[in-house]
């Protein structure tokens, strides 16, 4: 498997495996709504961080960063950011829906909650690693 392909499917792969595991284990959602409001706060922080990360990356103009873009990676980096932001939003919306349905009695709610949560987390970790590397690249004189 090519590293680029692996890097692209890893967050989805992690999220789907966790979800399958939860589905198989038949885990049910907690009764009270505290976890939903906590989740929304976490997702909002992630989305906020991602927006900041996007503006940081847009401002990086070092020679090595430019070389990374020129080699064709610009599209992938943008796509990774978009994926992380999109799943943060989906997770947020899903938690809002949780206020209207009874999560503990709705069979699809728990697996989906795990799917979005882990997809968001994994793609967020990927973006963070890339952001750190790009900041280092920008600082490096070569």
């Amino acid at each position, binding site marked *: 498997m*090519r*590293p*680029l*392909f*692996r*890097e692209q499917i890893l967050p989805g792969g992690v999220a789907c495996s966790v979800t399958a595991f939860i589905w198989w284990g038949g885990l049910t959602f907690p009764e009270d709504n505290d976890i939903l409001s906590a989740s929304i706060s976490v997702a909002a922080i992630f989305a906020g961080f991602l927006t900041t990360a996007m503006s940081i990356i847009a401002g990086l103009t070092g020679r*090595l960063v430019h*070389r*990374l873009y020129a*080699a*064709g*990676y610009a599209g*992938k*980096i943008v796509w*990774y950011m978009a994926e992380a932001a999109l799943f943060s939003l989906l997770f947020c919306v899903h938690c809002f829906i949780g206020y209207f349905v009874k999560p503990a009695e709705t069979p699809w709610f728990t697996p989906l909650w795990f799917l979005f949560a882990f997809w968001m987390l994994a793609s967020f970790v*990927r973006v963070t*690693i*890339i952001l750190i*590397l*790009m900041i*280092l*690249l920008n600082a*490096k004189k*070569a």
Partner: protein
Amino acid sequence: MKIDLYKLEPVGNHDLDGKIRRVLDMPLEERNRQRQKVYYRIETAQKIRHRWLIDFVQLRLDHGPGRAGLSSPMTNFEMEAGEGFGEDVGLLWDPRNDYCAVQYNHHSVRARAMAEYLSTVLPDQPHLMTLQPVLDRAFAARLRQKTIYKKLEVTVSVPLLDHNDYAQGNSVIGAARALLGSGVQTMHLTISAGRRELHRGMISNFVDWARGQEEADAGDGAANTRSALSSAKLTGKDDEDSASEVLDLLSQRVTTHESVRTGAGVRFTRDDRWNALERAFDRWHSYWRQ
């Protein structure tokens, strides 16, 4: 104008003659081929006394020079949309012995790109051929005389990251790490035998390989910058008692400088360039006459 002697080395039977004629029958826009972001093509070709004289043009469509003089200010050239600058360069090919005289134009098509064009210009008639620089006779003899090889020094310029990394499926994180990890842009490699000697077979393989590499030069966006070897030196002795001698494997090619007048538009005229190629090629008859 610098001219180098090359040997066309096709694998198996080729019909380059027919191929060139087919290219000449094609309209201009169909002859363009792209190589690393620039377009180049066979502009014109003519068979004169058994020899093909071929003109390649490399197009520069992004930006270019202007018109200026010692007492006149810099002004723009008038251009239509879709036009840019072209750099032409000549190739003489003698089909009877497959030797070629190649004009060197730093800003235009070079030997390796020419060979690639001739190999692949007709998709239904692909045929691998390479242009190998011919080694100077005296140098080749000196190289043969050396029976003891002591040291091999090579300088390679390493491309940091390019399209190939992406095409090969290298990950974003991997690519960024590669850029971070090695600030190396040139790599010096020395293979020294110390008191003993280097293996002859390895040296002759290396000389053959180095011969095919074009000299690397920094910082031009032309179609020919893929090569990376910037110096290759071999130290050897005739026998145990003689002194060591350093042979530069890259600069010992058959080459000459011909003076060419500039014509209208401050450019070398095609006739003058082709004449210079013929003059140089005739002077090298000892190489190509069997």
